[in-house]
């Protein structure tokens, strides 16, 4: 790879910023998002309505909050499949708190604490004992939700205070919901942490080569532990929003969300094997998934078909660039 320049100055980067953005995963996803948007507006006359669009955002805001934290975790080479069960446990704890007369601040504090404790538990098992995170979190996935089932059985907690309903049902301005604002705020926070801080750089380094990162003086276990904590915390933030929106807690709350969250992260261009990805990608992926489910909902497509479409979308978006690359290689060969 040596170049024969006599002037030994090495350029910082090659190509203009515009060229890099054009080639990026995010721009491809943005095209998909625009395409889905156009398709939806052609398919259903009810789509292009401010309130309908606002409703559509609830399809992804809660999942996306978890997806931001999950993106960092997956980039670092780990995964947390217990997030939906953390929602169940956090929601159950909040519901139980009402029975003891807790007010909204206490409920929120309890919900967030449960998320942090669950995240710390996962993180300790993975970083302290060196267990594979996929196994640990499949275990805690059953464990956390199992506790919910034991506490609630076939009952449900209701009777959340009126002020609590703001998180999932409140609007900040016109059609802009609190959840949507929170989604953007968290997107900015996670985007800045991942792309603009030393911590984010460590996350990428660990994901590309954990041994090399350790040999470079990075405290790998500590970074990973923090990422598990953040994922647990975001799961509990999602639990607060979802519980508030539904107004009740059942042990089956958010069943299957872990896979939708992971799908969102991977669709957003995060390498499932770790090492690369971006928050803007996850943001666009969240919109794509939200638009697709909402559009299909307007067309009265049943839920089963929706999951087929989401599955196809995931495989298609990931396979197409690879197929294009192979096609291009064959042509040039």
């Amino acid at each position: 790879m040596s170049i024969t320049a006599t002037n030994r100055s090495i350029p910082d980067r090659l190509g203009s910023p515009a060229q890099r953005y054009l080639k990026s995963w995010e721009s491809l996803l943005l095209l998909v998002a625009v395409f889905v948007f156009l398709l939806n507006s052609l398919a259903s006359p009810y789509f292009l309505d401010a309130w309908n669009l606002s409703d559509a955002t609830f399809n992804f805001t809660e999942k996306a909050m978890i997806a931001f934290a999950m993106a960092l975790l997956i980039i670092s080479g780990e995964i947390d499949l217990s997030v939906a069960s953390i929602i169940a446990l956090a929601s159950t704890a909040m519901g139980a708190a009402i029975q003891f007369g807790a007010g909204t601040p206490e409920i929120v504090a309890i919900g967030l604490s449960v998320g942090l404790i669950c995240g710390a538990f996962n993180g300790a098992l993975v970083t302290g004992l060196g267990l594979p995170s996929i196994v640990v979190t499949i275990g805690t996935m059953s464990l956390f939700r199992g506790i919910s089932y034991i506490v609630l059985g076939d009952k449900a907690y209701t009777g959340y205070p009126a002020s609590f309903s703001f998180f999932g049902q409140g609007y900040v301005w016109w059609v802009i919901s609190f959840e949507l604002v929170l989604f953007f705020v968290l997107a900015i926070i996670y985007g800045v942490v991942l792309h603009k801080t030393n911590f984010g750089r460590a996350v990428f380094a660990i994901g590309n080569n954990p041994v090399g990162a350790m040999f470079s003086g990075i405290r790998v276990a500590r970074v990973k532990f923090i990422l598990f904590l953040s994922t647990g915390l975001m799961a509990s933030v999602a639990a607060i929003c979802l519980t508030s929106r539904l107004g009740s807690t059942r042990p089956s709350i958010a069943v299957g969300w872990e896979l939708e969250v992971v799908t969102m992260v991977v669709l957003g261009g995060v390498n499932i094997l770790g090492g690369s990805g971006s928050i803007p990608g996850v943001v666009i992926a969240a919109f794509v998934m939200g638009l697709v489910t909402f559009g299909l909902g307007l067309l009265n497509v049943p839920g089963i078909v929706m999951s087929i479409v989401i599955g196809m979308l995931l495989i298609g978006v990931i396979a197409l660039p690879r197929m294009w690359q192979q096609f291009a290689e064959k042509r040039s060969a």
Partner: protein
Amino acid sequence: MSSNAVHSEPNESQIADGVAPILELGGITKKFPGVVALSDVSLRLYPGQVTALIGENGAGKSTIVKILTGIYQPDSGDMKLNGTIVRFPTAHHASDAGVTAIHQETVLFDELSVAENIFIGHAPKTRTGLIDLAEMNRRAQELLTGIDAEIDPTVKLRELGIANKHLVAIARALSIDARIVIMDEPTAALSHKEIQELYELVGQLRDQGKAILFISHKFDEIFQIADRYTVFRDGQFVGEGHIADVDENALVQMMVGRSVDQIFPHRETHQGEEILRVSDYCHPTEFEDISFTLRKGEILGFYGLVGAGRSEFMQSLFGITRPSKGVVRIEGEIAAIDSPARAVAAGIVYVPEDRGKQGTIIGLPIFENITLPSLDRTSKRGFIRLAEEFSLARTYAERLDLRAASLDQDVGNLSGGNQQKVVIAKWLATRPRVIILDEPTKGIDIGSKAAVHEFMAELAAQGLAVIMVSSEIPEILGMSDRVIVMREGRIVAEVENEQLTPESLVRHAAGIAESVH
């Protein structure tokens, strides 16, 4: 500097002394990007004889083994089996031709049973095409009994010790009726008693008419079991002959004697005060009682054979593994180093031997690799500042004369030598007090080698204390002010450079008593 004319050409009489070689390699050349691993070498193996392959680390021994077993393809040269030219495009072809290898770390399958390991790829089948377990176990038992190995063929391989794993590998060699058995440092991890048993087994194989290629660093065992020898040096054939015709001194000379075509930078050492003092460093399994001091501006060489515990000790000094005992003092003050982060903070940095896994972070661009341990300096309150990063990375990339298309390029696309420059740049950017370089020029091209050497000299001249672990004798002699030789986890010699000769280094490292010329 030495006479390498002893046996520089294989002469025809050696080939014709009774038996014809079963396997004959001629003019074998193998190049890797930036390195010529083998250059026009030849090798002959005779049925019923043990041929010892001798050479320093990096002489090309493992490359030739990989060519013999079909893992690498030579760029040129040919291979004759019983006089006919053969090619081994895959490991399977080599195995079919009767070539089998027993490695340092045996490549067997821990989770399979002993019998399955022996018969993998050629298991006896029942009429329905399924594996005939009973027959397989019976035949495995037969083979194991035949070599006096008391091993139950039904247990999983991972339950066996290394010596028994070797026996399983030998049983496997017998099961495929191997005609050529390669043993690559088979005794490296064995106890004295196990070694004796292995020698007996080698004798048995020889008596069965098998051709054996025996790779070893230990001269006593070469003289005990080999019939013939072949010496490689720096990827070139140096000589071959009957072991009865040579002595240790002659072999050592052939191994190390070289044309001094590598030029090392001229250095004038200005050693300052003591910066590092290591006392009684111990590890339960890897090393024991390591004590030494290091001064500013000094280059301290660590020589030894592979497995002498040098890298293990250095990694412990860098905080990767914890010592069971021992104290490190930096400028007289005790430094508690329990992680690489602490080591870096204390001013000790480590350029590892395994560049791909431990040195670089492939997937990240060059500048991010360089600034990774220095982010605290280039950032502000934890927020990265790209301009500062690029400027720091550029400073060190240019000091090391890095050849790259841009600083944003993935470090994985660089050549080995340039990757090494990135790793060194990364550590220099932390402004260390002690830099440990573990095999700093292994597998890199001559040009980068010279650049690394020159740079090392420059660093020492600027007062940095340098520890250089190397298995290359010219590098050790050409660069170090003082050399510590390690063997089996202990320091066996500490010598000022002026008193060193290649021969004495090899003797210390291999544990050969000083002999009179």
